[in-house]
């Protein structure tokens, strides 16, 4: 059997052989893409993300109005795939706020975010030479419970009335409560998550929205580091491969040949 790796005494879990082959192929494609980008064989570009371009505008608006900026990476733990880019963008926004002297209010729900957020924001202020302006009181753990967190956020947005509210990270049922509160507070709102059930709520209540993978790409878009941009190019190669498999699979299956289907289900 192909799924038995007798030479190392291991075997694939049932139905995981092909997914793992695809995963390894994906890793290889991304690796090749990074290599080609570093060596300037390819020069990948990322299309414009208006939501990210609007961040500078939002910070500028807060500076002009003399209002604080609110940022929230959502309800996820640090291990969530949306929290990581959420924090990376948060670091960028914190730095912009520090540069323009805008008060940066950071809220979160999961306790695992706190030490990293503290470190990240403090560093952003230090990097622009304004370490003394960092306020630990503005890094606020509202609650470990979803709706208590949403209530805390509604209260905070009504009291502080920020000039901009950025909600980039993992969101669930509380998304609409948070964005409606920001809308009522008159804040310019930029939101994004990968949860497809929440994106329509963001689209109806926010000025700019990062949809699904745009959130995870945003960190790369900001940094513009070639190695990072290379991973996005690799992502597109995988997309092409999957598309090709889907087209070939559909044609072959329609012709009554089921061996490719059986092979992919291994």
């Amino acid at each position: 059997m192909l799924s038995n790796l007798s030479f190392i005494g291991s075997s694939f879990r049932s139905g995981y052989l092909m997914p793992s082959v695809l995963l390894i192929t994906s890793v290889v494609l991304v690796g090749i893409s990074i290599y080609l980008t570093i060596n300037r064989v390819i020069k990948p570009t990322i299309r414009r993300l208006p939501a990210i371009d609007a961040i500078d505008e939002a910070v500028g608006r807060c500076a002009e109005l003399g209002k604080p900026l609110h940022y929230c990476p959502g309800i996820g733990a640090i291990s969530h795939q949306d929290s990581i880019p959420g924090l990376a963008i948060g670091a960028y926004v914190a730095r912009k706020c520090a540069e323009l002297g805008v008060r940066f209010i950071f809220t979160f729900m999961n306790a695992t975010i706190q030490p990293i957020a503290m470190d990240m924001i403090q560093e952003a202020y230090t990097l622009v030479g304004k370490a003394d302006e960092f306020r630990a009181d503005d890094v606020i753990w509202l609650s470990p419970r979803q709706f208590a967190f949403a209530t805390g956020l509604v209260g905070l947005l009504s009291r502080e009335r920020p000039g901009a509210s950025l909600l980039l990270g993992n969101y669930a049922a509380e998304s609409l409560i948070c964005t409606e509160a920001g809308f009522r507070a008159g804040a310019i709102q930029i939101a994004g998550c990968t949860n497809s059930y929440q994106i329509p709520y963001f689209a109806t209540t926010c000025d700019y929205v990062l949809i699904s993978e745009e959130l995870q790409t945003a960190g790369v878009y900001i940094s513009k580091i070639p190695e990072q941009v290379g991973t996005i190019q690799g992502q597109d190669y995988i997309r092409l491969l999957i598309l090709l498999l889907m087209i070939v699979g559909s044609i072959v299956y329609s012709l009554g040949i089921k061996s490719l289907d059986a092979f992919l289900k291994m």
Partner: protein
Amino acid sequence: MSIINSELLRRYLPWGIAAFLIILTMADTVVIEPTINSLASSALQSSTVVGAFVVIISVLLISRIHVRRVSRKRTVIESSVLLISMWGTLVWGFFRLFGAGVGPTSDTTILNIFDMIVSPGDSTVFAILAFFIASAAYRAFRARNLDSAILLVVAILCMLAKAPIGETIFGLGIVKLTDFVLNVANTAGRRVFLMAMILATIALTIRIILGYERGWMGRATE
């Protein structure tokens, strides 16, 4: 520079641990190999323990912030209520656990706090969502251009089909149309998001393994 603030401890060690754990858990998902499986299982258990320690740090940090607010006479009432509730519940929980051997999940006082304060509060906020949906829908469903007009018509048809009156007026056709919109068109769109998210997560994971993505370390901008 002390060893605690060195690049090795602050950057390379967390990155190395993260890369090792990512590869280990990925291998555990696909391969049956006792050593890998037991190592991955231990790693997942230890992440729970680390998570618990982070909660302790966060409780101490939040206490420090609110004690400072009380001492500076800012938000005295709110901060006092928070500190008393948080530490009162915590101390009572420990007192019952070590004094009477009753855990927080079986202690009636803790359960009553949850059932009579936390749970109704959660339900209330969740119920408010209905009004927010109505308000957001009012803003979204306005026929300003062709796209929003299509959205408006489809939304009205879907709402009618889900209400008993829709089937009574328009017959089974509207139900079949709505089923098509929800099960075919909507699902196809959602799967595009899902697929894109999975690909982006793979790329993100590779960036973490290679050390390009450092947002989770609190150092994304260097």
